[in-house]
């Protein structure tokens, strides 16, 4: 195959380079689009279990007096405790603030720095695998006793204390002039891990967030994530939730007239990634259709392009094909060999395109990976483990094969069926 590729390069350099450029460009763009999607759904630390997660970002509520009106936003701790926490079919679940907020952190009598803080419960660190380099997270007893503890990232520790070593564990510092004690240091987290991201994590009970409620304590400022033991447990979890939801709504309606509007929550990671507003259920099918349309256009347009060039190249080799046929080569053999020969060029060009897309993604992560309405001002960072997965490589190979088939299939089929006499 490599010999065939080098022969083509030498005999028709312009057309070969145009073909390689066209193929590399197509694979580059498709893989960039694939990575932009995968960064939202593929597993990487600290969201390594994304395939087992069900996210409950917001809640919706109505009242008997509101007609069709609803109130939509984050949930209260009451909602989490009565709907999600009792789940038995899930491995665990966690409640955390619906978004990070920017606060002042400082040592006494020092200039404060700005940090993004995410208040969470103690189970947060069981659901999201933040990598501790020193200390440990707050546990249930510390959470329930509202202790002012904090876990921070290495870079935040360096900014605040000048270092990020084990010796800092137990150190005191101030958040909004209130004293906290550092109990854990973790590796920095990219804002692209949008559920787990923060620079500092504190117990919810050490803040006033649990009291920040509305609609009679049925709505609040929290989101939740459920972690299943296995993806196959999702139907069982949803079935158990349906029973809990029915019971909670019956109880609420009999009380002061409120009822939750479920909008089919919770959502898988893929569905949660397309969710924008709390008052609308995301349309996953529409999002998938749009993505498929983009992939098709990005494949079909270059395939048509490359097909006409392949047609021209094959036409030049008609006498060679005729000689091979006259020596006993079968039509299917000719078809197969033409497709495989072109595959070498497609794979080489695909490799170039894929490499370019990874380099592009690493260099331009801040502008490439959209975070929508982000509450954080921290720059977006991406790393190779976040971008490269078996699924990404698989997709790259698949698109190369499909592109090759689309642009070589018809010309090769026609060439294999040409009459030997006419070709000679």
């Amino acid at each position, binding site marked *: 195959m490599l010999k065939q590729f080098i022969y083509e390069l030498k005999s028709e350099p312009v057309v070969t380079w145009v073909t390689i450029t*066209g193929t590399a460009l197509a694979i580059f763009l498709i893989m960039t689009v694939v990575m932009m999607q995968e960064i939202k759904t593929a597993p990487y630390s600290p969201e390594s279990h994304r395939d087992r997660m069900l996210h409950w970002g917001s809640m919706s509520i109505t009242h008997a007096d509101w007609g069709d009106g609803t109130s939509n*936003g984050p949930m209260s701790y009451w909602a989490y405790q009565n709907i999600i926490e009792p789940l038995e079919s899930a491995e665990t679940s966690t409640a955390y603030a619906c978004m990070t907020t920017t606060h002042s952190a400082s040592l006494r009598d020092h200039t404060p720095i700005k940090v993004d803080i995410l208040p969470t419960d103690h189970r947060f660190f069981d659901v999201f695998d933040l990598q501790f380099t020193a200390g440990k997270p707050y546990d249930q007893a510390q959470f329930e006793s509202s202790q002012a503890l904090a876990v921070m990232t290495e870079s935040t520790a360096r900014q605040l204390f000048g270092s990020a070593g084990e010796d800092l564990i137990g150190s005191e510092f101030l958040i*909004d002039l209130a*004293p906290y004690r550092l109990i854990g240091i973790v590796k920095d987290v990219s804002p692209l891990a949008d559920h787990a991201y923060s620079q500092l994590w504190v117990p919810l009970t050490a803040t006033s967030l649990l009291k920040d409620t509305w609609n009679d304590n049925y709505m609040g400022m929290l989101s939740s994530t459920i972690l299943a033991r296995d993806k196959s447990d999702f139907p069982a979890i949803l079935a158990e939730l349906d029973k809990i939801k029915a019971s909670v709504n019956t109880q609420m309606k009999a009380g002061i007239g409120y009822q939750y509007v479920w909008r089919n929550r919770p959502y898988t990671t893929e569905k949660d990634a397309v969710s924008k507003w709390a008052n609308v259920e995301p349309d996953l099918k529409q999002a998938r259709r749009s993505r498929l349309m983009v992939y098709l*256009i990005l494949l079909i347009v270059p395939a048509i392009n490359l097909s*006409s060039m392949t047609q021209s*190249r094959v036409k030049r080799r008609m006498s060679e094909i005729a000689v091979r046929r006259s020596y006993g080569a079968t039509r299917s053999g000719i078809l197969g060999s033409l497709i495989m020969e072109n595959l070498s060029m497609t794979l080489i060009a695909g490799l170039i395109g894929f490499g370019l897309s990874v380099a592009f993604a690493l260099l331009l992560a801040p502008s490439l990976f959209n975070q*929508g309405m982000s509450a954080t001002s921290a720059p977006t960072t991406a790393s190779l483990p976040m971008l490269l997965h078996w699924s990404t490589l698989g997709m790259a190979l698949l698109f190369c094969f499909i592109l090759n088939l689309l642009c070589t299939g018809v010309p090769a089929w026609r060439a294999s069926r040409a009459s030997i006499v006419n070709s000679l």
Partner: protein
Amino acid sequence: MLNEWRTNVWLALEFLVVSVVLWYICDYFYASMRTYFAPLGFEYDHCYELTMYDIPESSPEYRPEYAGDSAQAEARYEILRRLKQMPEIEAAAYSNNARPFNGSNSGFTMGYDSVSGNGLRRFVTPDFPIIYRYRGANGESPEELARQLEEGKVLLSDNFFSSSSREPLPSVRELKDAGKKIHYVDYKINGEHREAQIGSALVPVRYDEFSDWSAFALQDVCRDGFHPDKAMVLYYNELTIRVKPEHDHDIAAKLMAAAPDYLHVGNNLLTNVSSLDDIRRNFQRSTTTQLRNYSAGMGFMMINIFLGLLGTFWFRTQQRVNEIAIRRVNGATRRGIFGRLIGEGVLLLALVTPLAVAADCMLTHYDICAYYGAHHSTALRIAVCAGTSFVLMALMVIAGIWFPARRAMRIEPAQALSIDN
């Protein structure tokens, strides 16, 4: 062209697909840019949001005398007074789900006769229209609007009823001129909807630069005649300021320096200052990213056309050397050869364009345009977008055929024919 009909069919198919895709992208740009450049209704330059947090009880700085609602509210009003006394600051206001580029919203329903209308509910303190330069529909100044808020009046956007109705409805100005009583739909006294004290109708204010959503109501519930209560300011979750232009160079640093002392009142602590420009950029990031992605898609399509034609016509000129040589021998000029090849590509594009326009019209009819909530599709919009798509395609066709055509026009007939022999 008929001799190479098979290759030309492939090219025509490519032109058709790319034309429609380019039209879709042009349509998105047309609609979003048309919306973007429409009047916004407010100004956000030199505006900043201040983030204040409550110092918790665990802090040694906590002041228990400010624990009650009245004391907390008084502390908040004191912060507002101190901000307004700063020479750099022109206006300052608290608000609830009201500042621009805001993902949090509250709704409001007002009615007259049996008609009701919905809009965004913006609870604000009086300086708010001064900060964002809101204007009355009859030309009332922001200061006049601020005075009306102090009097407890509700200010509705002029399109409050008409924007959410499919039937044509009068503007708020027309309703007021006709003496119509506008009432709250949310509040009832003795089973009847309570009449609202309506002030000036306002020029509609768009939700953001890429949205048409613009019906809203402004009210200061702390001064509302229904249940005036200064402590209601505790529900106002935003604090924004307008800085005088000549002082807007390091205001964030100045405010943060004043945070521990001058602006530290009660248990309120200033922790962050963000410009509305930064907030706007974050809020609209998904739309601006979409525009960028579509631009990249457009560029990709155009490069594909260029490469496809370059490759195809390179082969074509190689295979047609004899024909070109004979044409030269029979009197064709170099320019004629050049123009002929370019003309083949443009002719093919022109033949395909009516089909592409028909596909564009079909997509428009079935509402498969990329942009939501923008101006409705019109013949002008389709024509402009299809025309732009055609021009872009033609440029790429000409660019792609240029080099092979130049190569072809340099063929020496005698050499070409003797090589073949």
